[in-house]
C-alpha cells in the first residue's frame, strides 16, 4: 500500500527527523510504501500545495500535521472527499474531527507548554523566559503561550534566529540584564536547550531552571547530570510510526482504532535521562 | 546680441576639494558655432555638463532665452531644446542602437492604453540618421556594446543632431571618427548652424575648430583665457592658447604647424 505523510517541519529539523524515522520504521515493519514530505520552511500555503499533490496520487492513506486548520482545511477536505483515509498527527487535535480526519496522534502544543510551565513553577521558578527560535511558527508560539499560562508568573518571549551562538549570547544577555530570571524554557533541545545551559554555566548561574522541548543527546546529558531540569518529550517517533501502521492495517484489513492517541507529553527528568540518551543519538527519541 | 540663447556667467564648480571650474563666462547665440577649447583637464566637459543640467554649478548664473534658469535634471535641459553629445557618450552598452538612439524620447503610436513604442519607425529613423553620418549599420538591434568606437560615437552624434532643437553641444564628437565620418560631422555642424541652431563644439583639433567655428573660447585650468571671433585669430595663435602657453615637443615640422 502507498502512504504519504505531509508534515509542516523539515527533514533536517532534529524533531521532525525523528518523526520521519518513525515513518520509515513503520514502512519497513508493515511493508507499506511510505513517503515523507514537507515544505522548505514553515509555510502553510506551500504545505497545502503538497497535500494537493499527494491527493492527486490517490494514496491508500494520508498522514498530515495540521498547524493551521483554515489554511490546510480545504486540501484535507479534498482528500477526504476523494475517499482517501486521513490521519492527523502532531498538531491539530482540536480541529481534526471537523475536517473528516479519522483520528489524531499527538499532543497539543499548548497543553505540553502548560504542563512544562506548571512543572517549572512547582520546582520554584518565579520569572521565566521562553526562547523561541522561529517566531511566527504558530506551533511554537502556542508552546510559549501554554508555558506562560501554566507558569502563572511573568514570562517574556525571547525571539532568536536559528544560530546556537546567537541563542547563547541572547540568553546570557537576558540573564545578565535581569537577575530575577530563574527559569528558561527552550523550544528546541539542540538549538536552544544546549546553548541555554552553556549560557547559564558561563554566568555561574547554577540556580536557573532550564527545560526544553524535544530531545537531544547533549541536552539529555545536561539533564542527567543535573544542569538542566527536564526535557519535554512528545515521543514523536510514535507520531510518525502509529499513523502509518494504522493506515497500512486499514488498507489491508480495514482496521482502525476508535479514538485519538495521545503520544505525550512525557517529561524526561534526571533519573530517566540516562537511558534515553542512546536512543536520542539514534534519532528514535 | 539679441539672439543669445544661453548665457552662463561666472560659473564655478567644485568636486569635494577639487576646483574644476573657477568662474567661467560663456554664451552661445542661435546660428553660430562657438568652439570651446583648452588643454586636457581644463574643465571643458565639466562646463558643458553644467550647461546641460548634469551638474549644478557651485556658483554662477545661467540665463536661457533671457530668463534666469536652473536645470534640475538633464531632462529639463533637453525639454528646453538642448541636446548634448557627452564625451563618455551616455550610451547603454547592453541596449540596441535604436533603443539608445531614442532613449528618453521614444516615438509612440496608438492611443491611451495602447500607446506604444513605435519600434519600426524608430528603427527606420535610426538607420537613416546613421547612414547620413556615413555609417551603414548591419541591424538596428545590434547592441551598442558590440559597435566599434567610431560607430558608437556616431550614434551619439546622430541622436543629438536629431533632437537638438535650439542648442547642440558636442564634446569632442570626432575623436574616434574616421575621415569620412569626421567630414560628415563637420558638414552637419555647418548645416544645423544654418538652420538657426546654436552649436557648442569642443575639440582638440585646431583645424576642425577653425573649419567650423565662428567664435573661440579657450579654457585653462578652470578659467576663461578669453573669447575671439574667427577673423581675429590665427590657427597658430589658437593652438598656442590651447596648449596653455606651454611649449610643445618637437616633431612639429612634419605636422606642418598644427597638431
Amino acid at each position: 500500500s502507498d502512504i504519504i505523510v505531509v508534515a509542516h517541519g523539515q527533514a533536517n529539523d532534529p524533531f521532525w527527523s525523528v518523526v520521519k524515522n518513525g515513518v520509515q520504521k513503520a514502512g519497513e515493519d508493515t511493508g507499506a510504501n511510505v513517503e515523507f514530505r514537507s515544505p522548505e520552511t514553515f509555510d502553510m500555503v506551500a504545505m497545502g500545495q503538497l497535500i494537493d499533490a499527494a491527493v492527486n496520487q490517490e494514496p491508500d492513506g494520508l498522514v498530515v500535521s495540521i498547524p493551521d486548520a483554515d489554511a490546510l482545511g480545504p486540501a484535507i477536505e479534498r482528500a477526504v472527499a476523494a475517499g482517501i483515509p486521513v490521519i492527523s498527527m502532531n498538531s491539530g487535535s482540536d480541529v481534526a474531527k471537523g475536517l473528516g480526519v479519522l483520528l489524531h496522534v499527538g499532543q497539543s502544543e499548548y497543553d505540553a507548554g502548560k504542563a512544562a510551565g506548571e512543572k517549572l513553577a512547582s520546582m520554584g521558578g518565579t520569572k521565566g523566559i521562553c526562547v523561541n527560535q522561529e517566531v511566527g511558527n504558530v506551533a511554537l508560539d502556542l508552546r510559549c503561550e501554554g508555558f506562560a499560562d501554566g507558569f502563572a508568573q511573568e514570562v517574556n518571549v525571547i525571539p532568536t534566529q536559528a544560530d546556537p551562538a546567537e541563542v547563547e549570547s541572547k540568553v546570557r544577555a537576558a540573564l545578565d540584564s535581569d537577575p530575577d530570571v530563574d527559569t528558561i524554557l527552550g523550544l528546541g533541545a539542540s538549538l536552544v536547550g544546549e546553548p541555554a545551559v552553556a549560557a547559564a554555566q558561563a554566568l555561574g548561574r547554577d540556580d536557573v531552571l532550564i527545560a526544553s522541548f524535544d530531545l537531544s543527546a547533549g541536552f539529555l546529558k545536561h539533564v542527567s547530570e543535573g544542569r538542566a531540569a527536564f526535557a519535554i518529550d512528545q515521543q514523536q517517533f510514535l507520531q510518525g510510526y502509529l499513523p502509518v501502521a494504522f493506515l497500512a492495517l486499514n488498507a489491508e484489513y480495514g482496521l482502525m482504532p476508535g479514538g485519538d492517541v495521545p503520544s505525550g507529553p512525557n517529561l524526561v527528568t534526571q533519573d530517566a535521562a540516562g537511558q534515553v540518551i542512546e536512543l536520542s543519538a539514534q534519532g528514535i527519541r | 546680441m539679441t539672439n543669445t540663447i544661453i548665457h552662463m556667467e561666472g560659473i564655478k564648480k567644485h568636486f569635494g576639494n577639487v576646483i574644476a571650474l573657477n568662474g567661467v563666462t560663456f554664451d552661445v547665440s542661435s546660428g553660430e558655432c562657438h568652439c570651446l577649447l583648452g588643454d586636457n583637464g581644463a574643465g571643458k566637459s565639466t562646463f558643458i555638463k553644467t550647461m546641460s543640467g548634469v551638474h549644478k554649478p557651485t556658483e554662477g548664473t545661467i540665463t536661457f532665452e533671457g530668463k534666469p534658469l536652473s536645470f534640475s535634471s538633464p531632462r529639463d535641459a533637453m525639454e528646453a531644446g538642448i541636446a548634448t553629445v557627452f564625451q563618455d557618450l551616455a550610451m547603454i552598452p547592453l541596449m540596441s542602437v535604436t533603443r539608445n538612439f531614442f532613449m528618453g524620447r521614444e516615438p509612440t503610436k496608438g492611443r491611451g492604453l495602447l500607446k506604444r513604442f513605435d519600434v519600426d519607425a524608430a528603427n527606420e529613423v535610426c538607420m537613416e540618421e546613421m547612414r547620413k553620418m556615413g555609417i551603414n549599420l548591419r541591424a538596428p538591434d545590434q547592441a551598442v556594446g558590440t559597435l566599434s568606437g567610431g560607430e558608437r560615437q556616431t550614434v551619439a552624434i546622430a541622436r543629438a543632431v536629431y533632437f537638438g532643437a535650439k542648442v547642440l553641444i558636442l564634446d569632442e564628437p570626432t575623436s574616434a571618427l574616421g575621415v569620412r565620418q569626421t567630414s560628415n560631422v563637420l558638414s552637419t555642424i555647418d548645416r544645423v548652424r544654418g538652420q538657426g541652431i546654436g552649436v557648442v563644439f569642443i575639440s582638440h583639433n585646431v583645424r576642425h575648430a577653425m573649419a567650423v567655428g565662428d567664435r573661440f573660447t579657450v579654457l585653462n585650468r578652470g578659467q576663461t583665457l578669453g573669447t575671439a571671433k574667427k577673423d581675429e585669430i590665427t590657427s597658430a595663435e589658437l593652438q598656442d592658447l590651447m596648449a596653455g602657453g606651454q611649449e610643445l615637443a618637437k616633431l612639429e615640422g612634419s605636422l606642418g604647424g598644427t597638431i
Partner: protein
Amino acid sequence: MTSNAESTSDERVKSESLVTKFMKRPELGAMGGVILVTIFFYMTADSTMFTLSGTMNFMTPAAQLGILGIAAAMLMIGGEFDLSIGSMIAFAGMIFGVLTVNFGLPLILAIPLTLGAAASVGAVNGTIVIRTGLPSFIVTLAGLFILRGVSLVGLKLFSGGSTQLRGVRDALEGDPLIEIFSGDAFESLFSYLASIGMVETFKNGASKVPGIPVEILWFILLAAVATYVLLRTPVGNWIFATGGDSNAASNSGVPVKKVKISLFMLTAMAAALVAIITVIDAGSTDARRGFMKEFEAIITAVIGGCLLTGGYGSAIGAFFGAIIFGMVTIGLTYTNFDQDWFQVFLGGMLLLAVVFNNVIRKRVTGEH
C-alpha cells in the same frame, strides 16, 4: 550625403538560421530549462504529475512565485533589488486580514486599501534608495526585518495575542469580487469536461480539477503585460536604460528616479496581490507568510536570465524561471526519492537547468 548604393545585404554578415535568431532571445533560453526539467520528471516521476490536475498542482506555487518573480525581474532590470517582498506578503496579508475580519470591509474596499498600503511602503523604499544613494539591498533589507516585525506585532494586536489571524473566508462569504481573487476559474466548464470524461476524476467520480486556479491566470496576465511594457513601450526602454547605466540614462533624459520608485511600488503591489490571493485561499494569515520568498523571487528572475547588475533580462524569462522552480520543488514529491535528498536534488536540478540553457544558447549562437 554618402552613397546609398550599399543595400541592406552586407557581405560581413553570415546568414543566420531561424533557430539561431530564436535562441538569441535570452528569455527563450529559460525555455530550454523547462524542457529539460519536464523530460527529467517525465522519466522519473509518477505519471500523475503531468495529468491536468498534477499540472495545476505544480503550476499553483509556480504562479504565486512567478507573480513575485516577474515584478522582481522588472525591478532587477531597472538595477535594484527588493528584499522586503517576502515580508511584504506577511504585512499585506495582515493588513488585508485586519481590514476584512476586524473591520469587516468588503473586497471592493479592502483590496485597494491593501494594494495602496503596499504601494506606499514601496514608494518609501524607493525614495530612501534615491535620496540616500544607498544600495537598495541594504535599504530593503531593513524593510525585510521591519515589515516582518510589524506584521507580528499587528497580528498579535488584532488577533488578541496569536500570531495567526483566522476567519477571512467567513468574513468574505458571498463577496462578489471573491471569484477574481480566489478559488478556480471556469469551474462549470471543468465539471462539464469531467462529466464527459475529458478530465480525470477521482474514484468516486468527482472531477480532479475543479478549474484553473486564479493565480495561474494572474500569473499569465502579469507576464504578458510585463513583457509588453518592457519591449513595446517607452517606459520599458526607460527601465532597461535605468538599469543599464543610470548615469547615462539620466544624462539622456530618462526620468530615472520616477522609474525606480514606480518599480519599487510595483514589486510591493505584486507581493500584496500574492498576499490577497493566498489569504483568501487559506482563510487565514500568519506572521511567517512569505518567508524567504524575496529570495526565491530573485532566484526566479536570475534563472530567467536577468543580470544582477541590472539592464538585462526579461519577464518571459522570469515566467519560465518560476515554472522551473515550481516544477522542481513540487516534482520531487511525485518521485520516489527520499525527502532527505530533497535539497541536493533541488540544487542539482537548478544548476543543471541553468547550465543547460546556457550551453544550448552558446552552441546555437556560436558565442564564446
